[in-house]
């Protein structure tokens, strides 16, 4: 890609199990005010924000046209607003495209989700399946993930012990992030004793119910100095959709993630992710997905996920220093959370979990059962 698009600022509320005292408008308003304060951006029709990209979900909000409830708190009154009704990482990709196209100079990108609002996440994700066959069978993202977990653990020699170390590490890392969901630190034994949700996925293997909202300001290369002295550049984005029926695909093959990653690498001019990228944020809804996605983007050898954990792969490649999705972000917002961690790390604002010398980072997002849709963004300073 020729031109670059900058992320000028990010804002977020803390990830929590349930914001009982706030509705999503209040959560977004916190982020909105923070972005305005950090960047002094305006809504001037010539020079300011003319388009806002949001991310939310009708089913989780229990509202037809969920973005209708956010128009005022994202500043979209008499401005444009387009809702990414998909994993938020694609909203980042789309916002980038809107700026590269020349249509917009400045885009505000905001998202929200209150997983705590619904009686059951699984009832919601069950609705992602066709009403005739998969839905009556009781499929939801969690139990189809379990089918993938079984297939992948078999293929890459990943054990219950490996999964326990992933969970322990995730919670430890997250404890260094003031915006992360506050989860109790656990040891391997406790993880391995936690009850089964859907064999082989245990309760502590799966990301907990979380409420969260965020904001980001994106801008074209020419005008970045108006909003920040320390931009982080997005230099690549790509996605891929896998087939729908579980029986139509090899659940452990990483078909869609490999495609998404390769497309993104080509656009960002990356030859070898192990050498060219210093930080990785992967969207692991469940513990088994950390090594699986690591294989998919090419930082763990194919079918060697178990060995990769044993060798300390997650730490040597700086993977999920935020604690990852596993520690808790709402569904569909995991990708934005990953990108925000990359932004903070690249800017040197990651506090106690700061890595040194990272110049390029990869943020990943996925949604659908067993990672049907995958997307990747590359960020650089």
């Amino acid at each position: 890609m020729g031109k670059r698009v900058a992320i000028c600022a990010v804002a977020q509320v803390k990830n929590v199990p349930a914001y009982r005292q706030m509705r999503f408008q209040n959560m977004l308003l916190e982020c909105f005010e923070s972005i305005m304060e950090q960047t002094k951006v305006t809504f001037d029709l010539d020079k300011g924000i003319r388009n806002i990209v949001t991310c939310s979900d009708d089913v989780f909000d229990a509202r037809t046209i969920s973005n209708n409830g956010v128009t005022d708190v994202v500043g979209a009154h008499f401005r444009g607003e387009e809702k990414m009704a998909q994993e938020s990482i694609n909203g980042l990709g789309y916002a980038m495209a809107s700026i590269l196209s020349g249509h917009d100079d400045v885009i505000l990108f905001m998202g929200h989700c209150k997983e705590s609002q619904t009686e059951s996440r699984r009832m919601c994700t069950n609705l992602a399946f066709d009403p005739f066959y998969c839905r009556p069978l009781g499929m939801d993202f969690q139990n189809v993930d379990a089918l993938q977990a079984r297939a992948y653990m078999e293929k890459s020699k990943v054990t219950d012990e490996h999964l326990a170390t992933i969970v322990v590490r995730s919670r430890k890392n997250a404890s260094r992030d003031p915006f992360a969901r506050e989860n109790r630190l656990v040891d391997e034994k406790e993880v391995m004793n936690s009850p089964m949700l859907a064999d082989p996925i245990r309760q502590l293997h799966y990301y907990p119910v979380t409420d969260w909202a965020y904001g980001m300001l994106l801008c074209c290369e020419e005008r970045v100095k108006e909003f920040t002295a320390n931009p982080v550049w997005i230099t690549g984005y790509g996605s891929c959709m896998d087939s729908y029926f579980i029986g139509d695909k090899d659940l452990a093959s990483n078909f869609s993630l490999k495609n998404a990653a390769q497309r993104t690498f080509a656009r960002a001019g990356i030859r070898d992710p192990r050498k060219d990228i210093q930080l990785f944020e992967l969207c692991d809804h469940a513990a088994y997905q950390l090594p699986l996605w690591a294989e998919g983007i090419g930082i763990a050898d194919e079918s060697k996920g178990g060995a990769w954990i044993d060798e300390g792969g997650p730490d040597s490649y700086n993977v999920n220093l935020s604690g990852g999705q596993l520690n808790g972000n709402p569904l569909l917002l995991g990708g934005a959370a990953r990108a925000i961690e990359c932004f903070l790390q690249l800017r040197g604002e990651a506090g106690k979990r700061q890595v040194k010398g990272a110049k390029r980072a990869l943020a990943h997002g996925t949604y659908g059962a067993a990672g049907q849709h995958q997307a990747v963004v590359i960020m650089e300073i």
Partner: protein
Amino acid sequence: MAHRKKNRNVGIIGIGQTKHSSHREDVNQPEMIHEAVSAALTDANLTMKDIDCIVHGNMELFEMVHQPDLWHTLGTGAYGKECIRITTGGTVGMTIACASDNLVASGLYDIVMAVGFEKLQEGHTTGGITNMADPLWFRNLQTGALTGSKAYELISEFGEERAKRASMMYRIIMDKHAGLNQYAHRSFGLEFEQLDDLIKSSPKLVGDLKLIEMCSQSDGACAVIFACEKKTKELSRHPVWIRDHITVHKEEVFQIFGYHKDYPVLQSHRFAADQLYKRNNIDKPLEYFDVFEMYDPASWWAVDWLRDFFQLRGDEHIMLVEEKEIMIDGKMPINPSGGVIGSNPIGATALIRVAEAALQIRGDAGKHQIPKPVKHALASGFGGTMWTVLMMLEKELNWQEADNGGILGNQR
């Protein structure tokens, strides 16, 4: 032109839609989508191999499918492709067209296919729209997209008889247009002689909004293929170019009136039109455009919005309708397709406006082709709480020079 010069030009090279109907029990959702996708690919003489990215859109609570692009992969052909899903309510079809334009212009993708659909018979539409209101208060009061306020405003401004006749005249014209369109859902064969009878006989829904004046609830899908300038020139013998688009939203408050002369209310359609024409140097839109495919959810709204979209004054818009200048052979043909009153598969509806406007420019609209040459087309989307999206389509890539009488004349 938007903020800066468009990175590269984008053309429409393929168009497909299903027959719109209230009886599509013969297909499920992906199967119906597949009909439109196949038609668009055939139209463009392409296969799925040629498509880089799919942009999917509808309103998921109408059918109660969460993240429907996952299941619909079976019908969209997204397997192995890049795929995004963008939704904005009634405007969604137009938003996915705008998004496709942005994605291709960005240089990330050479060929993008937008797919909009709805199977309204699979849910309760008015209940579904009511669900958009805030659950804490307005959801308990509101009745979907039905309102008699526009009728009330027009009657207050132009008198009962004139206003009611204008609305019904518009309705009959749309019915006549729909009769020419093989894909249209409803065409009753209405005649102008029935005008006064229909005003009396059609049942009232809300205030003076009558059943026959409100859009239908349809099942249907539409797919449109967008390509970069290079690919468009290689692949299409009669491309249609996207010139510019604008989106304007409004806060979530339904009861905005401006019924006091000291407290006028800014109209989103007017605002969108003003901004779009200003940055494209168009000062006489009624003269510039050859056709307008408008998202007309009800005939009262349609009549009123003509004034906003064409920056008209006084009763100029009423006269356009009364003198039948909005008919297919009139001065400003509105919805030769029969419009949204004729067919309304909501998630596809606004994309159909783009598709139909493009067909007019190509000269491929068949029986509902406008009898004079079409160079400049306007399409609109409507949704949410008075949200607007407008898109301008052109026959010639060098639209600035192509039309000496129009835009250059207007610039000076």
